[in-house]
């Protein structure tokens, strides 16, 4: 056994203090990253990848149709008008699809927003690939203006056969203060 001190009590205490500090650090350096990695890898919580999908699918599966529904929600206190241009579309797995969401800022001041996507059923998250998405970046908007925000996606050909409908939901958050705070801190 490692000996820190000749006094056995000091030795015990030193080891225990190290353990306690290590457990505190464990939360930040192990639990948080591990949770994020696991969620990414398993697509749990309907979390989708935050990066654009770049691989190529083996071709379009014309024999299959999947319904994609779009849902848009404003987080509490978010004044923007935000919604999909179409409520749902039917797509073939493997094909690339485009749509847009629109957002408008009714307030006089410029704001920054962040949309957070979520997939339901969460099992489908790993098979829903976004090649382009406004959710990859923050959305600044001047006061009293609006924008069209593009979304491009591919449904994986390996999507489990029993899934016929995928719901893609976005919640839009006001991150103006967070962005300003980060700039101010710098």
């Amino acid at each position, binding site marked *: 056994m490692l000996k820190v001190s000749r006094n056995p009590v000091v030795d*015990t205490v030193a080891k225990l203090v190290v353990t306690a500090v290590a*457990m505190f650090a464990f939360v930040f350096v192990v639990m948080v990253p591990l949770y994020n990695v696991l969620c990414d890898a398993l697509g*749990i919580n*309907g979390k989708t990848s935050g990066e654009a999908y770049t691989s190529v699918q083996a071709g379009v599966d014309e024999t299959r149709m999947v319904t994609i529904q779009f849902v848009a929600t404003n*987080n509490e206190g978010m004044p923007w008008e935000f919604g999909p241009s179409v409520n749902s579309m039917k797509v073939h797995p493997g094909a690339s699809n485009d749509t847009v969401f629109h957002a408008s800022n009714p307030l006089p001041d410029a704001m920054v927003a962040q949309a957070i996507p979520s997939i339901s059923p969460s099992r489908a998250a790993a098979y829903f690939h976004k090649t382009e998405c406004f959710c990859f970046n923050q959305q600044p908007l001047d006061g009293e203006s609006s924008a069209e925000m593009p979304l491009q996606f591919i449904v994986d050909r390996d999507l489990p056969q029993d899934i016929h409908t995928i719901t893609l939901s976005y919640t839009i958050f006001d991150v103006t203060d967070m962005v300003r705070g980060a700039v101010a801190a710098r």
Partner: protein
Amino acid sequence: MGDHHHGPAKGLSRWLFTTNHKDIGTMYLWFSFAMFILGGAFAMIIRAELFQPGMQLVEPAFFNQMTTLHGLVMVFGAIMPSFVGLANWMIPMMIGAPDMALPRMNNWSFWILPPAFLILASTLFMEGGAPAFGWTFYAPLSTTYAPPSVTFFIFSIHVLGMSSIMGAINIIATVMNMRAPGMTYMKMPLFVWTWLITAFLLVAVMPVLAGAVTMMLMDIHFGTSFFSAAGGGDPVLFQHVFWFFGHPEVYIIILPAFGVVSQIIPTFARKPLFGYDSMVYATASIAFLSFIVWAHHMYTVGMPVAGELFFMYATMLIAVPTGVKVFNWVTTMWRGAMTFETPMLFCMGFLVLFTIGGFTGLMLSIAPADFQYHDSYFVVAHFHYVMVAGAVFSMSAAVYYWLPKWCGKMYSETMGKTHFWISFIGFNITFFPQHFVGLAGMPRRIPDYALQFADFNMMSSIGAFIYGASQILFLYNVIATIVSGKPTDKEKVWEGAEGLEWTVATPAPYHTFERPPAVR
């Protein structure tokens, strides 16, 4: 160590500066009792509001503050410090040590507690009110939507966490280094064993709790987004971190209680514990398993099926070592020459009611069934059976059992038994009906409920008032014993008792085992 050979100092400074394990134990015990009364007062407000359906007495926001503070004060202020107090008093006397290994740190770990709870209680008077997000303080309720007082809440959790860690380190250092010659690990009384394991759990998970509240603090004040989806974080992460602390925490609460019961039952059954070794191994396996079951509190967050199954089976596995313990206590009593003094009554009450709580725990551990039970009064009934009838009953047993040794006076057996029976009946009237309203769908943490639940809730409230009143009787019994109990100087207060603490004079002198005893 100059103050080694005289008695206690006089006046207030005795208590402020004391490094004596008995003084500190006494302070912990009184402090925890004060917190028990405070938390109990919050509970009385909750039950008064729920006496009838409809909004009766308090605002919903205040009701939520009451459920939150009730849970926090009972878990961190009443139950945990009471067992630390007991550890301080008994562990040195049970292993033949003159004091705790770190007497000065012992003083600090006690004295930072009252300020922590003063801060927590003072949030009631702050703008926006006290924390109202439940004792489990799930984000984002406790971050984005928290009242401003949440910062004080976080600070008080940090301080009381420090206190627990210091107390735990002290206990481990004492048990590992201060045992009398010949007191091998496998000769230690079970109370010492269960506390040693509990202390390791504390050192492992209190820092995790500190990490959780630190992340909250950073999210609230420093612009991080650990738990905020807007910044790429995830509120579910909070639940994982919290319950990684929280499930071991429930064993931190119950293991010392197991230790107490394992001391008392053999005394009044006049037989040695049926299986000492199996008891030690069962305790250790419960402690180990407690680290891999946390997500049974989170079956409904949308885990993958594999996760649900893993946590379900792991949770069910805990029933095995727990069963080993229950059968151990029962077989210890089997064909024993039993008598039913107050401590024994409380232990038997513990045994019956804790087992009921264990069974409802097993029901809750079934993931698909838990989707119905979760966040209902059924869960409330479950954890009050294990925490009140488990931890609090065993604490009452411990007080009646060792009080004569502490103060050299006998309590009144009639009054003790009265306390037990009123507690036992009051407790069951309070919490048994909660199983039924829970199964019928009454959610927890609400100030109002559907009319169909009215009768059972009224029963619950009446039971709660009875149970609450019986704790005033407890206070009376303890004070009456200290002031005017029948003096006793028998070293072995109970004829069937075993262990070093029964070899010292009664009442226990200020300093014991200054020279280590011989252990056979």
